[in-house]
């Protein structure tokens, strides 16, 4: 297709920022090996809880992942290497109605085991199994929700502090994210003249222009990482991941349903900007409300109403992440300065990987004769819609 983008240089910068954000995510997420190790571990835990001879066998326990591990948006914490792996242990046949008893059944099973005793710790809503240097596996026991509710994945979770059951729907929440993430953003192609514009059609964004994972998942990872850096010294004030994931998912879903974008970068900015529209304020109580999309009675922003500072922190952070992302594509003072910005936003390891990926991509494309330069020296990938004056022949930089 013979098309010319109206602002091709700006478009190239945006594509390169997306490429660098992708490298940021690759640097901080579990590798495929770590994902499969984690899967192996939780399957072993599932077998251990359900095996014949286990006191839990008769309750029909089923173990499945929830949270970021399930939607593949997990990231490494800023201090340390261990990933959180959140698991559900749903008892399909549980006659017990006392939350304390159900929680204790799981705790006892781990605690009475030679293998898991030293790794297990009890938390408010789960039993945590620590794999030193690898993961924390948070095993959350639960029983199926009431009829109808259970049909869509609803469960009751024992809550130690409340000393009661708490309604939840981890599988439904994952489906909410996965459904939105599967929607492919539409590309708005900018044409040089009216004749071309007339024949313009909307088409999916080119692979080159986008992330190596669904854009929504990458956006969630970028936001969470930025949050972790921003709240490095006041972790308790940080918005919880489920709030970020919910708002980003609503915003992404609306963005890809209603709009077209000339670049994935523009989509990212729009999604981050649009998150605010999904923080509701109840007109009668003036309380903040971010309903759990898979269980609308649950308000993820409950703590904001108890401590309004948390809401202020959220808005301050949201504004900063929007600004930081916008500034990235406006840099003209050097790739190293882009690196500095990325470092303050996402940490030094991630920023290093991002800058290296930009450099490596030019190297690899040159080796395959896929770049050229413009009359001002701008290095441009082949077929990008920017007029180049020369191709870059393969070569070897020499010298120490």
């Amino acid at each position, binding site marked *: 297709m013979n098309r010319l983008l109206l602002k091709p240089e700006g478009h190239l910068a945006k594509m390169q920022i997306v490429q660098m954000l992708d490298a940021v995510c690759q640097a901080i997420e579990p590798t495929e090996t770590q994902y499969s190790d984690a899967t192996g571990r939780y399957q072993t835990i599932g077998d251990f809880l359900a095996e014949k001879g286990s006191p839990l066998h008769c309750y029909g326990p089923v173990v499945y992942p929830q949270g970021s591990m399930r939607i593949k948006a997990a990231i490494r914490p800023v201090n340390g290497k261990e990933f959180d792996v959140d698991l559900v242990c749903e008892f399909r046949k549980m006659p017990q109605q006392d939350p304390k008893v159900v929680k204790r059944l799981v705790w006892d099973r781990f605690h009475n085991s030679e293998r898991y005793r030293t790794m297990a710790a009890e938390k408010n809503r789960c039993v945590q199994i620590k794999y030193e240097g690898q993961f924390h596996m948070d095993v959350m026991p639960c029983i199926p929700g009431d009829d109808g509710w259970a049909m869509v994945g609803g469960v009751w979770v024992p809550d130690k502090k409340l000393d009661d059951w708490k309604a939840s729907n981890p599988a439904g929440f994952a489906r909410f994210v996965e459904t939105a993430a599967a929607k492919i953003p539409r590309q708005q192609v900018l044409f040089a003249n009216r004749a071309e514009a007339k024949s313009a059609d909307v088409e999916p964004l080119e692979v080159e222009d986008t992330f190596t994972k669904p854009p929504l998942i990458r956006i969630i990872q970028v936001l969470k990482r930025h949050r972790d850096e921003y709240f490095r010294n006041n972790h308790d004030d940080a918005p919880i991941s489920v709030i970020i994931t919910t708002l980003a998912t609503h915003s992404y879903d609306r963005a890809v349903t209603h709009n077209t974008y000339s670049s994935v970068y523009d989509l990212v900015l729009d999604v981050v900007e649009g998150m605010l529209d999904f923080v509701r304020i109840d007109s009668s109580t003036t309380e903040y409300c971010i309903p759990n999309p898979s269980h609308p009675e649950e308000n993820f922003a409950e703590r904001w109403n108890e401590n309004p500072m948390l809401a202020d922190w959220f808005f301050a952070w949201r504004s900063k992440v929007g600004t930081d992302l916008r500034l990235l594509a406006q840099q*003209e003072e*050097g*790739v190293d300065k882009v690196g500095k910005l990325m470092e303050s936003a996402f940490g030094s390891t991630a920023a290093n990987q991002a800058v290296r990926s930009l450099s490596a991509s030019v190297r690899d494309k040159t080796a395959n004769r896929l770049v050229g330069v413009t009359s001002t020296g701008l290095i441009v990938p082949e077929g990008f819609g920017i007029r180049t004056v020369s191709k870059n022949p393969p070569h070897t930089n020499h010298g120490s």
Partner: protein
Amino acid sequence: MSKIWVKVGALNVARQLCELRQLYPHGTGRIARNRLQWQCALQPSAFSRTYRVEIKYRLGNLPVIVVWHPCPRELSGGRKPPHTYAGEADPLCVFYPAAQEWNSSMPIARTIVPWSCEWLLHFEAWLFTGIWEGGGTSHALLNETTESQAQIINQRNP
């Protein structure tokens, strides 16, 4: 050995300058006593600084590429940038002479200039990461090449 750079079909300096002017119209160049001297402002990426790059060339020698402003050595806080030769203003090494990646039949405008742009981009990345991702060989590993390089640099026109 000393003749390898002047091939049959070698482009004279006037042809080289002509093509540089065609491809990079805002560059400036001249020829004095068979020596081409050309300068151009180059910006390798939308994020990059704009660099004033100079290329000097005499048929039979290798082109010498120098970045004048901003000065790479100043940007790096005094560290010698990777893939540069010893010499005034750290001339860039953008190809491997022993592999005969460049010879005098090749237009500088379509080889040396695009390669210099790449060097600038990899250099800016190196400023931040301390790692050169542009690929290449090392003088330290190829001592014999260093010598042949020096010979070529020092040789005169036939």
